[in-house]
C-alpha cells in the first residue's frame, strides 16, 4: 500500500486442455492452454490423433489406387485432390490432356472449392452462435453431391477421374443439374451473406480476431485463403497455371489484416469467383468437339469394357494396367494445385516400379496450423476458437 503501487501480486495460471474431442474443434487436435483468467498466455498443440500413414501406404499402392488415398486428405473437397494427383502422374508420363477434358476438370474442381468454402463459412457462423446459415446453405451442398453422384457414383470420397482424363463423359443429366445449380446457388449464397456479412454481432466478434501479418504468414509458408486474407496475392492457379486456368477470367480476393473477418470474406468472394469460372468453362466446352473425355494413353487408361471382352489387344492392356505391368518412366516430379486450403503439392519419385518410390504430400493445413499458437496468444478463449475454425483446419489433411 505504501510503496507507490509496485506491489507484486502472486499470479497463478490455469491450465486448460482443449482436448482432442471438443465440439468447437472441427477435427481432432489438442491444445493445452495456459490461461490467465480468460486470456490465453501460451498454447501447445498436439496433432497426430488421426495419423493414417498415407505416405507409407502410397509406397505400396499402384498409381491408380493412390487416388482413393488422396480423397481422404482434404475430404471436404476431394475432387481437387484427385485431379491434382492425376495431373502429377500425367506430368510424370508426359501426356497432353485434350482441352475439353481440362475444362471439365475445371468445372469439377471449382464445384469442390465451393463445397469446401461453404462448410468453412457456415461453421464460422455456427461457432459465433448462428446456426441458421449452416442449415440454409447445406442444402446447396446436397445439390453438389447430386452432381458428384452422377459423375462418379459417390458423394464425398469421390475417387473421380482417371490418369489421362475422366472415366465417363458428362451425361445430359449432369448438364441439367449444373444449370439448375448455377440458377439456384447465387440467390442462396446471397441469402447466406445477408445473414452474416453485415451483421453487427458477427462483425464485432470476428474483426480483429486472430490477425496475422503478411510477413509472418509468408515466413510460416501459409498459402490459400489464409494467406490471401493477410494481403499476399499468391494463388497457384494464377502463378503456375494448370489445366487451362490461364484462359479463365477471374479475380483473386485479398484481405488486409488477416483476421477472421477477412478470411470469411475472402472465402465468400472466392465462391462468387468459382461460379463465374464454372459459367465460363461451360461456354468454352460448347466450342470444343463433343464426346472427348480422355487422352489417348492406352498404357494407363483402362479400355472400355465392351472392347475388353471382344478385342484381344484391349484385354492385354486391361490385364497389364490392373496387374501393374506397364512401363512407368523414372522421374522426380513436383506438381501443385490450388486446393481448398492452399497449395496442395505432390512430390513423387518414381523408380520405374509399379508403386511410387517416395510420395510426399505438401499439405497446406499441416503447415499453417503451426501458426495457431502465435495467433491465439493474448486472445480470449472464444476468439481462439473462432481463429481455429476460420483457418479451416481439416484433420485428414493435418495428419495424413
Amino acid at each position, binding site marked *: 500500500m505504501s510503496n507507490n503501487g509496485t506491489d507484486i501480486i502472486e499470479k497463478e495460471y490455469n491450465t486448460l486442455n482443449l482436448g482432442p474431442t471438443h465440439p468447437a474443434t472441427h477435427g481432432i487436435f489438442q491444445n493445452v492452454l495456459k490461461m490467465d483468467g480468460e486470456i490465453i498466455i501460451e498454447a501447445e498443440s498436439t*496433432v*497426430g490423433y488421426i*495419423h493414417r*500413414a498415407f*505416405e*507409407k*501406404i502410397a*509406397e*505400396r499402392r499402384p498409381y491408380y489406387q493412390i487416388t482413393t488415398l488422396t480423397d481422404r486428405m482434404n475430404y471436404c473437397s476431394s475432387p481437387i485432390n484427385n485431379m491434382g494427383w492425376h495431373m502429377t502422374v500425367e*506430368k510424370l508420363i508426359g501426356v497432353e490432356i485434350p482441352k475439353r477434358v481440362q475444362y471439365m476438370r475445371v468445372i469439377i474442381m471449382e464445384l469442390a472449392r465451393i463445397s469446401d468454402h461453404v462448410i468453412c463459412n457456415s461453421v464460422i457462423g455456427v461457432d459465433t452462435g448462428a446456426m441458421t446459415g449452416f442449415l440454409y446453405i447445406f442444402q446447396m451442398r446436397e445439390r453438389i453431391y447430386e452432381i458428384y453422384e452422377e459423375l462418379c457414383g459417390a458423394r464425398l470420397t469421390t475417387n473421380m477421374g482417371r490418369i489421362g482424363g475422366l472415366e465417363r463423359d458428362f451425361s445430359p443429366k449432369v448438364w441439367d443439374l449444373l444449370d439448375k445449380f448455377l440458377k439456384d446457388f447465387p440467390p442462396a449464397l446471397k441469402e447466406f451473406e445477408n445473414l452474416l456479412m453485415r451483421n453487427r454481432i458477427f462483425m464485432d466478434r470476428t474483426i480483429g480476431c486472430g490477425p496475422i501479418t503478411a510477413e*509472418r504468414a*509468408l*515466413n*510460416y*509458408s*501459409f498459402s490459400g485463403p489464409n494467406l490471401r486474407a493477410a494481403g*499476399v496475392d*499468391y494463388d497457384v492457379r494464377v*502463378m*503456375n497455371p494448370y489445366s487451362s486456368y490461364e484462359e479463365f477470367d477471374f479475380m483473386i480476393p485479398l484481405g488486409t489484416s488477416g483476421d477472421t473477418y477477412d478470411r470469411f470474406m475472402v472465402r465468400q468472394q472466392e465462391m462468387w469467383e468459382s461460379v463465374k469460372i464454372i459459367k465460363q468453362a461451360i461456354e468454352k466446352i460448347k466450342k470444343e468437339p463433343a464426346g472427348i473425355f480422355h487422352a489417348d494413353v492406352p498404357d494407363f487408361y483402362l479400355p472400355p469394357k465392351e472392347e475388353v471382352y471382344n478385342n484381344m489387344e484391349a484385354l492385354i492392356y486391361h490385364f497389364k494396367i490392373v496387374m501393374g505391368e506397364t512401363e512407368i518412366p523414372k*522421374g*522426380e*516430379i*513436383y506438381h*501443385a494445385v490450388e486446393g481448398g486450403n492452399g*497449395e496442395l*503439392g505432390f*512430390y513423387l*519419385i518414381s523408380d520405374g516400379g509399379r508403386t511410387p*518410390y*517416395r510420395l*510426399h504430400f*505438401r499439405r497446406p493445413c*499441416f*503447415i499453417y*496450423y*503451426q*501458426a495457431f499458437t502465435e495467433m491465439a496468444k493474448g486472445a480470449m478463449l472464444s476468439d481462439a476458437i473462432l481463429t481455429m475454425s476460420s483457418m479451416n483446419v481439416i484433420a485428414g489433411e493435418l*495428419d*495424413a
Partner: protein
Amino acid sequence: MDNNSLLTIIQDKLTSQFGSDFLSAELVAEYPTFIVKKDSIANVIKFLYDDKELAFQYLTTLAAIHYPDNQGQEFAVMYQLHNLPKNLRIRVKIFFSVNDLAVPSITSIFSGANWMERQEYDFFGIQFIGHPNLKRILNMDDMDYHPMRKEYALEDGTRKDKDDKMFGR
C-alpha cells in the same frame, strides 16, 4: 527468366560463395536442382534468402528420402524454395549416411520449417540441430522406431488375427 539461365546464375553464385560445399547443379524435369554438402545447408538457404537478386523467401516444402541401397548416402533431404514476386522455384538437396544423421535446422530462417522438420524426424530419425522442439509429432510418443524407413513394414506387426496365407503375403 527461364530455367536454364536461372540454373547458371545460381550455380555461379553458389560456387563463388561456398566453393567446395557446392556439389552439383542440374535441371530435373524443368526444376533447377542443386546438391550441396549436408553441414552447409543452413548457410546455403540463408544465402538464397538474403541475396537481393535471388530472394527465395518462401519455403514450399521439405521431405526426406531413404535410399537403403546407396552405401554411405542412404538419406537425402530435399528442400523446395520459391521466389514469389518473380515466380521462380528451385530444389536444394543434401545426401548423407545413416551413421551421421545430424542436419542443421532452418527453423531460424523459416518458422514454417518447425513442424516439417519434426515430421521428418518422426518418420526417418533425422536429427535437426538447432531445432527448438524436436520430438515426435504424428506418431505416438513412445514409438521406438522410425516407420518410414524402408526396412519397416506398413502393417502392424503385433496383430495375431490376420492369416498371412489368406492375405497373400
